[in-house]
């Protein structure tokens, strides 16, 4: 979204959007209606930005909740594996078998 200066004076409001690989520029206009369109676009952009920020914070919160439990899970796996290996088992294709010798 941008205001373009015209050679004859005055400003012209334009919007750009992507269509496939191309960027298409739409000429909205000038004057009070263009001011309104620009204001509307700015509000939409701000709302989208705030939404992205909320989503990012929410994901970080979820990851923070999950992290200690994932860490515990990994610790438990290491300890269970160590116990079984120490008890004389070996792992073969994901299954434990009594080791020979």
């Amino acid at each position, binding site marked *: 979204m941008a205001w373009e200066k015209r050679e004859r004076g005055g400003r012209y409001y334009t919007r750009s959007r992507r269509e496939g690989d191309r960027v298409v520029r739409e000429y909205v206009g000038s004057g009070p209606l263009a001011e309104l369109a620009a204001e509307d676009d700015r509000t939409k952009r701000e*709302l989208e930005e705030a*939404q*992205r920020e909320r*989503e990012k914070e*929410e*994901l970080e919160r*979820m*990851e923070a*909740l*999950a992290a*200690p*439990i*994932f*860490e*515990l*899970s990994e*610790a*438990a*796996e*290491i*300890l*269970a*594996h*160590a*116990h*079984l*290996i*120490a*008890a004389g*088992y*070996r*792992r073969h294709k994901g299954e*434990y078998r009594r080791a020979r010798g």
Partner: protein
Amino acid sequence: MPEDRSGALELSEETKDRLAELRSLSKRAEAGEKEARKELRRMVRSSSEEVIGRASDVGRRAGQTLARSASGGDPLVEEALFAKLDYMRAQIAGDDPTPLEVLLTERVVSLWMLTTVLEVLLASQYRRSVGEGPERLSQSYIMQQSRILESATRRYLAAIRELARVRKLQGTPPVGANAPRG
């Protein structure tokens, strides 16, 4: 047990170092190094109970933090969730569990809590996202949230399998609805 930081939801550096050592020794023992197996046995006897206790403690606190978060500040819901977690612990661990069984039980219970919380969050947010308006959620957000849930669910199922496997190999009778009677 002297866990380094009261209320911490993270394993201490010392515990992490011991775990890394256990992992390395297990790997060498599996590869056939007899000395490594001996050293692993010694380490399992001498220090694993303490490490297990510390990890169980962190797991219990993480489960409680999740329950607190899921309760949304309602003390009644929080108490009900704590009671549910305690009930699950008792049911899954059974009578006189070994320290390793306690840890594996804590892992199952806290992962159950995590998957439940994530499923509820995802379901409520999905309802919002299918509507129109400013509350509509982005596709990438839903995808990332689903990825965390999928990861938790996979770990939860693996935790149940691991506990059953350890019990079977250690000769502990199974507990729960399918336990043999008499």
